[in-house]
Structure formats: C-alpha cells, structure tokens
C-alpha cells in the first residue's frame, strides 16, 4: 500500500496527517489558503516539538498597526460571543457521539475534502484493496474477514489483526 493511500485512509478514518500551510484565524478556523498535503517523510512538519516552534505558513511576515491589531482582537471577542450558541450545540453533540472527528475531515492527496467513514466502512475498504492486489502487502494487515468490526470485542479485533499480520508476513516469505 503506498503512502498516498495510507494518508487517504487515515483521513477517512478521521485522522489528520497533514500540515496546513494556511495560517489559522481566531476561533481555530483556517483561512482560505489551500491545505498542503505532506507525504510520508513529511508527516513530521505538522508535529509540534516540546521546545520547537510551529512550521511557518507560506507567507512572509509584515507588521500591522497597533490599532489594527487591537481591532482584530475585538473582532475575535465579538465572534466568540456570537458563536457561543454553536459551542453549546457542539458540546451536546460531543456527549452523544462516541467517536468525535477532530476539526472536521482532513484533505485527501488531491486536495479534496474527504468525508469521514465509519469503522465498518474503513474495514471493508481496506479488505477490498488488499484482495484487489491479490497478494499480501507489507504494512498494516487486513481486517477481520466478513464479520462486522463493531460486533467484535477489542481483544478479538486485536487478535484478528495480529493473525492477519502473521499470515501476511508468511505470504511475503
């Protein structure tokens, strides 16, 4: 399975492996800059070290006036007040849903937004891809065949993943 596919799968599972080159505005929202997909060796750029600094975005820095800066903070505060209701709704949803996708879907390698899929769909998808290739692949093993992932206990799921990995390794030999 190549890196792009793995990144796409991670995105579909609701996990981000990308570093965004657009700076983030107040309220945690990204601005209009297109998120940039960083491939395998560069999953690193989004990772924040204990004593590091965030990776810069694409723009050079330039000063704005003190007044403009104060105005922007004021805007943030006003937006905050306006979105309080939304936050309440979000809080409620969060309690209701066990799996919370962080910050919405991550972009796919072609830049399009990927709609998160369920665990079952992901399991099916991985299995399809594996059987398409007709041979065992290096890397993450196939998921339990046929049975719905959600009906498995954690232990059982882990056991089956391990079994698949062992088979995969054997097939490679």
């Amino acid at each position, binding site marked *: 399975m190549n890196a792009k596919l*793995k990144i796409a799968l991670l995105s579909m599972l609701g996990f*981000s492996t990308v570093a965004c080159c657009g700076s983030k505005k*107040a309220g945690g929202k990204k601005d209009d800059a297109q998120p940039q997909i960083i491939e395998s060796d*560069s999953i690193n750029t989004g990772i924040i070290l204990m*004593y590091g600094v965030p990776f810069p975005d694409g723009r*050079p820095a330039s000063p704005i006036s003190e007044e403009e*800066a104060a105005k922007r903070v004021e805007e943030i505060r006003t937006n905050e007040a306006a979105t309080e209701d939304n936050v309440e709704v979000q809080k409620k949803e969060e309690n209701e849903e066990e799996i919370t996708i962080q910050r919405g879907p991550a972009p796919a390698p072609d830049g399009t937004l990927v709609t998160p899929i369920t665990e079952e769909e992901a399991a099916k998808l991985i299995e399809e891809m594996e059987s398409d290739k007709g041979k065992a692949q290096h*890397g993450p093993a196939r998921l339990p065949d046929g049975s719905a992932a959600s009906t498995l206990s954690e232990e059982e799921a882990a056991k089956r993943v391990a079994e698949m990995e062992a088979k995969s390794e054997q097939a490679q030999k």
Partner: protein
Amino acid sequence: MKGQRLGLRKQIGLKLFNSLYDTAVERHTLRTLFWECTLRCNLKCRHCGSDCRTDVTERDMPLADFLRVLDEEVTPNIDPSQLLIIFSGGEVLVRSDIEEAGREVTRRGYMWGMVTNGMALSRERLRSLVAAGLRSISVSFDGFEPIHNHIRGNAHSFERARAAISYIREIEGLTYDVITCVTPALVERLEEWKEYLISEGITRWRIFSIFPAGRARHDDTLHLNAEQFRHLMEFIRHTRTEGRIDLNYACEGFLGGYEGEVRDHFYMCNAGVSVASIRVNGDISGCTSVRANYTQGNIYRDSFWQVWQDRFEVFRNRRWAHKGECAECRVWEFCRGGGMHLRDDDGELMYCHYKMLK
C-alpha cells in the same frame, strides 16, 4: 474518560501511521534543525535544565561556526526552503547578533523561528527580527500572573510575556503559538486560562507537562499526578472539539485512548528522524530535549551531514528501548519506548505518559 483504551478505529489508524513512520525513519529527511546558540538566560525557571545536561558557563557558539556548517554541510545536501532552523537557548534574545544570524540564514533560503520567554522582546526588537526574516515564534506563558511568575522566578515575567504576545499579534503572517507548561496550580484553572487566552486574541496554543527528573524531580509544584494528568487530557480533548482555539499537546509520549484527539497527529518522536540539533558546544544530536549521552558527533570534529546520514542509529532504531517495562508493554508497537527525552543516561525509561492514564 478515554484512559488507555484503544478502539478499533484508532488501532487501524495507528497501524497505518506506524508504517508511514517507518518510511519517515528510512528517509530521515531533515526538516528541523535546532541551533542552540546560547545557554545564557535572563530568567531562572524552576523547571529549566531539568535534564542537567550542560554547563551554563559554556560560551555562546559563534555565528560563523554555525554558518560554516550550513554552507559546507547542509545547503549542498538539501533544499533550504524545506528546512526550518530554530534558534534555541537559554534565552535567544540575550544574544545581540540574532538579527544578523536571521538575515544570514534567510539569505541562504532557510526559514527560521525562535522560542522566547518574552522578557527582552520589545515591539522594536520584534520588528527588527521580522525584518531579518523571522517566520515563526513561540512564547512561554505558563498561567495566571502568580503561577507564571512563580515558575519563571521573576515578578515581571508575566507582564513581559503578555506584552510580547500582543506585539506578535501586530505582525501579519508571523506564525506563532503560546506554550503553557501545565503545573498542578494551573490544572484546576485550565478553563479560566483558556478563556483568558482567547480573550487576549491568542489563536494557537501548545501545552506540555513536566515529568519528575533532574532538577524538577523533587519539586512537587511542577509535576502532575495521574489524576491531574487525565484531567489535562480531557481538557485538551474537549477544547479541541470546541474549535475556539487551536490547541495541541506537544509530542512527548504515547497517549493511549487520547491518541488522535489531543494533537493534530499521532504520537511520534522525531528526534533524529527529521529533527537534529547543534548544541552550544558543537555537539550534534536529535532534538534539544534529549540528554547529552545521545550525542552523535560534534561539528568541530565531524562532518555534520555524514553524522546525520550514517549515525543516529540509536534514534532511528528503537529496539534497544524494548526492555524493562517497555518489553512487557502491549502498546510497544505504537509507542516504541516513548520520546527520546524520556530516557536517562543509561537508556532507562524515566516516565511513561501511557501509564499515567491507567
């Protein structure tokens, strides 16, 4: 609470991420280079130097020595526009030639950034740093005034950090974040602290915690107990779902059920994989948080590039860490023995984040 439990979705994600990590290790593309340009500092923070790794009487590294490494070893081997150079300390701003250093690395096509406590960051100084090409800056901001000043050991440190952040906000396009080292005094007030940061217009926030080692070992005002640590994880997870401020827990360690929920990425120790550092005495290592024992060479003796390419085995192949409690650990596959900074001089594990989540 999520605790240690890893759901199936997360296990699949971690397995996928694991294989991407293997590729990253294989390629070990250098993306971040720390230049520890000084160990001098204008503060005496309680947690600083907790790894007791270096002598603070060490003189600053001359800029020319660092530039020589860039010119002879780094620039010929990489695309400078893809490498972030981080000036680190001590407190970087005690050096008077930071602007010159910034201009020189910018002229060579590199991005650069720095971490500061804000004490010496006036509006004018910041603007001259920006003119010298500064692209990213992080400011330490550890909680409300008494908490911050207690940790930083200076009665004016809170006000200075706050002012520094306000100057930073005046710069369009400058990437920044605020770093909070969460201590027991702050842990119960995290919600309040978050509201304060948001009201100050801060959009990006990073949290880390201190583990009991070195100077910090016997200071109970610094480290979180298991319950406080879990509270912190819950707080970060919840804050990220709100989407009001962009919050991340630093790389540090594997977080079990919180993986994928308290950071933008899964746990990964990049030291020696994509991160290198040149220490003030010329030592070459992974990230600056790692102890001196893991030094891989010295720029005054060795070729930096050869060291980066051919050594660093201890960072890139963590099988050696599969001992003690890690040997028995059911999440070894995803954690690989934790961050390099969590290993003592003998390679023994000093702290396990995952265990704190029991």
